[in-house]
């Protein structure tokens, strides 16, 4: 399962349970599967609705492939992945396509409502999105550095002085937390907790990015830029660096590792309220 799939998976399960009458659902992650009589979330692999069979739906596609050869009794909501429909395919509701790709046979009775929100963006749109995203982060960096300079500095210091410890703690907690959140979502009852956890995770990761930006910003004092403006500029630097790295092979991994360092630094310093001091083991 891709890391990017996790939020979409949680959103899909949240939408699925929003009506309140769903008590079970099938989630597929890999391999070849056949749709059953339960509501379905396709998160990986290929799930087929065989010819001459009916799955009641709804079906959510976040990753992998949904191959409809038979009939879907309800709606299909596509947040990602692929939807295929053969000539005999029939969807009683609609295919609400928000992202991903589709190949619908012209003879299929499959009504599609397409509202592409994450389709391939044009370079200009992508640039605008990046500028907005970076601007929001920089503003957050400026405000946090102004309001809570000491905790931010403490987190940044932990990331600089103890990168390996921060990386280890950040990676461990992230991996465990993602698995735990997805697992909670599967219980359906804990979906709200899972979504709250995801929000908390995003905030911690964001705080980590601000701390890395602050760290970079402290290097700007030689140019006469200090305090909150330096942090904001540092955050811009981190954001630009991450964007540039996404074009380089393994750059994504480097960005992920750096983000883990940030998350770990936030955690080992208790959100920056306590200096991290490793235990002392004299020889």
């Amino acid at each position: 399962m891709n890391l990017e799939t996790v939020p979409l998976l949680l959103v899909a399960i949240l939408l699925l349970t929003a009506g309140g009458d769903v008590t079970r659902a099938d989630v597929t992650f890999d391999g070849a599967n056949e749709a059953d009589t339960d509501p379905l979330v396709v998160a990986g692999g290929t799930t087929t609705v065989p010819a001459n069979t009916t799955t009641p739906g709804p079906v959510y596609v976040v990753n992998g492939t949904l191959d409809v050869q038979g009939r879907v009794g309800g709606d299909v909501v596509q947040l990602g992945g692929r939807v295929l429909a053969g000539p005999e395919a029939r969807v009683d509701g609609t295919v609400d396509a928000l992202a991903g790709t589709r190949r619908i046979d012209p003879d299929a009775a499959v009504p599609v409502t397409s509202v592409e929100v994450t389709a391939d963006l044009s370079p200009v749109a992508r640039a605008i999105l990046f500028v907005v995203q970076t601007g929001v982060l920089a503003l957050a960096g400026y405000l946090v550095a102004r309001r809570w300079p000491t905790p931010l500095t403490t987190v940044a210091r932990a990331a600089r002085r103890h990168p390996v410890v921060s990386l280890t703690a950040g990676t461990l907690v992230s991996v465990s937390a993602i698995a735990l959140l997805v697992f909670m979502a599967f219980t359906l009852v804990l979906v709200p907790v899972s979504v709250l956890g995801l929000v908390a995770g995003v905030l911690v990761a964001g705080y980590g990015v601000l701390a890395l930006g602050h760290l970079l910003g402290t290097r700007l004092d030689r140019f006469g830029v200090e305090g909150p403006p330096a942090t904001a500029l540092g955050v811009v630097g981190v954001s630009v660096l991450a964007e540039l790295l996404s074009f380089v092979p393994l750059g994504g991994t480097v960005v992920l590792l750096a983000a883990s360092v940030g998350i770990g630094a936030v955690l080992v310093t208790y959100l920056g309220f306590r200096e991290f001091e490793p235990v002392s083991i004299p020889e």
Partner: protein
Amino acid sequence: MTTLDALRERDWATLLGVGLFVALAAGGYYYNVTFVQLGLIDLGVRVVGMSRGAVSVAMAGLALATLAVAIVTGVAMDRRGVSRDLYAKLRILLGVTVLQTALTAVAPFVASELAFYAWVACCSVTIGVGVPATFGLAVDLVPVPDRGYVAALVTAGAFFVAAVYPLEWTIGSFSRVMVAAFVPALLVLGVLASGRVPLIDELAGEPRHAVGRFCRSEPVRTWSLAFWALVVLMFGAYFVDSLGFLRIVETESLVLSSWGSPDLGIHVFIGVVHVLGAFAAGVLYANFSRRALFLWVFGLFAFTHLLYTFFVRTAEGAPPLLMPGFYALAVSFYTTLNFALWPDVSTPETVGTHAALGVGVAGWLATFLSTSLALYFEESGVGLLSHLNLVNALALLLFAGVPVAVYLHRVARYARGGPT
């Protein structure tokens, strides 16, 4: 001097010492997790034709006998001063390796139940003697600040190779691998134990890394709460692992898609997770209190078994790799802790006894009891789901028990008017 300092200053004796400890401990653990734990089942069931229950009883007997031999050896080593003598420990290990080479070579030819039991008895003697002798080397060879990282190297090395090779869990393939590894090891150990290697001479004499991390203010006594609390916690880790794994490994749908898979890629994945887990545990051990590691160990086990029970309850077919991945992570965590902990609660006067009690009671007794319990469950008709539920409950109990025990310990200290 730490290992990094030694590397910078080209202190070959220290580097050789660390390398030797890693090689011996990783080799010994690899032998244990592959040849003894998996090879013996194949030998008993397929080659000799015994029932699985009878083989499990023999393995439980091996665990108990190993515990007894380890304690006798460890106590004798400490009382006779052998734990302070590097050459004596190397020579003991040379003897153990000679015997294990012979035992390993003849294992595929064991054909009767009597021979099988005799083989198990001899094997338990070699392992029982080997455990305190190997752990005892830490006071001579492994700098105290590096013990977490060195333990991580041992764990990573043993588990990565065990996960990747051999893929076939038969006594024949295990035997060939082990004999091929033992022969050069024998030669190297023979040379090192001969007393004619100047670098080893530099390491011999008074132990260089005598006082363990947790013995700095005062030595941890054998009959103290501090020592036995650790033994109980490690016992819990081994017990939870063993009880869960014994059932998982017998469930074809679970094991054929993970540890027993014919796909090398899956084995490499599990091996890499072991390496990453060991590294993470090493970092945590060196930078945090041991409490944090125990919490991670029990938390990971609880979560892993929760995943398994959830999967068994709701799904069919092959489980996602996430599950063996988390399992491997948890196992690497406590194994790393195991290799660093016992030397760190010891001095040269106690390292043999503490290693024997620690590894013996926590490792072997836990294996014995979990094997017995698993057999009892099987005979009582306890299903897979109920079995894993129990393991999960135990892991959760231990996970919750650690902070509660720490808290109560502090309450008791403050009540006695101790430092705040």
